[in-house]
């Protein structure tokens, strides 16, 4: 058994508004092991993003416990690069926020950018980059502070289909080669199957884990490769049915 790095134990969360309260999650338990890539899919509006906010510590559970052994890096749907900062300055942003803006850390972040093909764009502005490159820059920004867990909130959904497949491959390769733990939230079944080691299916609100599946693609970790394998369509069907229950 791998070391657990993130654990939700019997978590409930209630949202309060003036018009009432909503039970977003109830008795939700899950755990993510070190180095694991876990994808969570669920019907729309089931509170997937809430789950990431809980993991990132942005929300406190109403009941239960969220334990994180390590630091989190959050990646959103859009790249959210600051248009007035160069790519390099964008990548340094979390270092500045966490007051870790030392020459060594900057050098490390720069080396990461170089390693993953952003070297020539460090002095460019986000507007000068393609959507795929921008999302890659957003990932490097997330990695700049060397987080233990990456929280990915539908990070490809804002991209067009072709770019999406490429960036998906890209991001998977980078996360695997950096040996990071990742928790991906998505509504796209094929994305979950092609990326993850384990897929969790959530119920409608209030969210609970309904099913857990270990993906059986062996050593194939490239998303595009997985999409060509025979098991792929089987998983797609299974998850599709489970989602629509």
């Amino acid at each position: 058994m791998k070391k657990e790095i993130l654990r939700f134990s019997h978590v409930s969360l209630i949202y309060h508004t003036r018009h009432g309260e909503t039970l977003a999650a109830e008795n939700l338990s899950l755990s993510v092991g070190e180095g694991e890539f876990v994808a969570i899919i669920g019907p729309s509006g089931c509170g997937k993003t809430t789950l990431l906010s809980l993991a990132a510590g942005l929300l406190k559970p109403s009941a239960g416990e969220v334990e994180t052994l390590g630091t989190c890096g959050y990646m959103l749907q859009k790249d959210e690069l600051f248009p007035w900062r160069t790519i390099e300055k964008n990548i340094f942003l979390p270092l500045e926020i966490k007051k870790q803006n030392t020459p060594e850390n900057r050098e490390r972040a720069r080396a990461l950018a170089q390693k993953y093909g952003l070297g020539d764009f460090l002095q460019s502005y986000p507007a000068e980059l393609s959507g795929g490159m921008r999302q890659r820059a957003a990932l490097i920004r997330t990695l700049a502070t060397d987080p233990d867990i990456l929280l990915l909130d539908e990070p490809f959904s804002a991209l067009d289909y072709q770019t999406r497949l490429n960036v998906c491959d890209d991001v998977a390769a980078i996360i695997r080669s950096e040996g990071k733990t990742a928790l991906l939230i998505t509504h796209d079944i094929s994305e979950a199957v092609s990326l993850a080691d384990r897929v969790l299916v959530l119920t409608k609100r209030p969210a609970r884990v309904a099913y857990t599946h270990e993906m059986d693609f062996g050593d194939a970790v490239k998303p595009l490769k997985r999409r060509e394998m025979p098991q792929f369509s089987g998983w797609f069907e299974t998850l599709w049915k489970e989602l629509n229950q």
Partner: protein
Amino acid sequence: MKHTEEKPLYTQEHLLYLKKRRNHQIVVWSLRLALLAFILAAWELVTTVFGWIDPFFMSSPSRIAKTIASLYEDGTLFYHIGVTLLETVVGFVIAVAVGCIVALALWWSETLRKVLEPYIVVLNALPKIALGPVIIIWFGTGSEAIIFMTVLVGVIVATLHMLSAFIATDKNKILLLRSMGASKWQILYKLVIPSSLASFIAMLKVAVGMSWIGSIMGEYIVSKAGLGYLIVYGGQVFKLDLVMSATLILCLLAAGMYFLVVLLEKILVKNAEN
């Protein structure tokens, strides 16, 4: 720069397109100048040349020129311009500074924002000129009263403009910073302030106009010098030449100040990009 080293090879069609654009610009500018010349000429003709309208009521370009020349000769031209310009610029700077600071405070505290909201709405709707007598009693009849009026006219607009810019900051970018563990201060100076630059410049443009309204209105109520004073005085003694001259100078100054803001915009935007 890369662009100057290799000369771009444009197609004939593109060159034609560029030429067309340039010609269009020339046409627009010529027409603008022609319109100005036409207005001045018509004005001069109907008043002094043909005498259809008594220049006593309409003044005329030549009489305006003479009036400005005589103001210049007796040394009062730049004195009046200076007085008004000083009041406007000082009022403008104070209004913008106070407006930005108050907007920041209101962004910072939602409670404060809610508490002050009705007061700001009322102050915004109130015609500031109604406060004229109060201002005279509080600040006397000097430039201070006029500067206060200028600030009063500009500050609410500046505050509301900046506040709505601060509040419109991208929620997802705030979420991103919060996920990095950013404090409210960091969110403010890393995100909220830089992303409000465009709105800040738009606010400056509005505030320039407001400051002129404030200073001239202030001079109407109470003044011993300045362009507003010249206009009011000219009106009272039926010297339309003086009224028109001061108005013309006012137009030029207001346009000049606006273009300074446009210049500032170019510099700021360039800096933001470099």
